[in-house]
């Protein structure tokens, strides 16, 4: 069984207590009526669906019942980090060594080889 760390319960808990809740960090416009159709489509329908690291909302439904965020590798199904709702995205490069080549699928092509965040090769 997959163990998922709940940032509110502060420990690893069995996956049966959790529920997936879609992509994280999708920002809702403060003025929904004014945004263009294209911008609304982006917000409402378009999800990143990468092969590699995704940022997702999860809910500890049968535990503390709180929503939180997780960085997960869609190739290995491994949870790389979980953090409380409202906290910023963790730095993806932090997980690179753990996540293998697939982790870089989430990075813009120009930065693909920029492992150390330094000059491009």
């Amino acid at each position: 069984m997959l163990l998922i760390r709940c940032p509110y319960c502060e420990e690893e808990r069995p996956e049966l207590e959790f529920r997936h809740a879609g992509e994280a960090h999708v920002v809702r416009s403060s003025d929904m009526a004014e945004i263009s159709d294209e911008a609304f489509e982006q917000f409402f329908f378009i999800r990143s669906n990468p092969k590699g690291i995704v940022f997702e909302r999860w809910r500890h439904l049968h535990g503390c019942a709180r929503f939180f965020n997780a960085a997960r590798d869609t190739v290995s199904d491994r949870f790389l980090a979980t953090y409380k709702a409202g906290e910023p995205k963790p730095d993806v490069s932090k997980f690179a060594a753990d996540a293998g080549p697939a982790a870089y699928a989430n990075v813009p092509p120009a930065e693909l080889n920029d492992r150390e965040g330094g000059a491009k090769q």
Partner: protein
Amino acid sequence: MPTQIDVSNTSPRRTSSAKQNVPADPSHKGQDKALRRTGPLDGRIAVPGGLSLTVLPPASRLSLRAPAGSVADLSAALGMDLPRSPKTSASDGKGRFALWLGPDEWLVVDEAGGDLVAACRAVQALHSAVDISHRNVGLLVSGQGAANAVNAGCPQDLSLQAFPVGACSRTVLGKIEMVLYRPSADSFRIECWRSFADYAHAFLAEAIADASA
């Protein structure tokens, strides 16, 4: 057949008599026959091997939600310090206990049937206190190896290191949700919703038979 309702009493069920009011007494004693409270699992027992499964008597229960700033006032009103750490509980030693369910959520139980909503009524600090006494059914699995029986349907680590005496958690039992509380090393209190009580009892009766075997 203890759940049978006495139909010989032909008097109207509701009268203005104070005697007809549902008493605060959580036990079944002293109630008018026509208004006798019937629990969903009345009369059931299951005691195979060294483990026992007990249907606990009715109790007062409160679903309490409050921000951190209200906890001190609510603690004073309820007569015990509400737990602030995950998976911990507090007890007043007189049958009233509070279980941490989430960062701002507690399940408060009073086995003596005290009015928990009334206890919180005077608190001015922001909070939500909802009486859920009748929503839950309490079951007790006790005896050596009780953790094994509960683990038949609960995926959490119930070793004493991970789930010590006094620990509590909302979690799952087979296909249902429950609140689990460990009042002693060899006993677990299971709180589940009333409509799931039949399933919980059947599941645990089988589990203690397996764990005792």
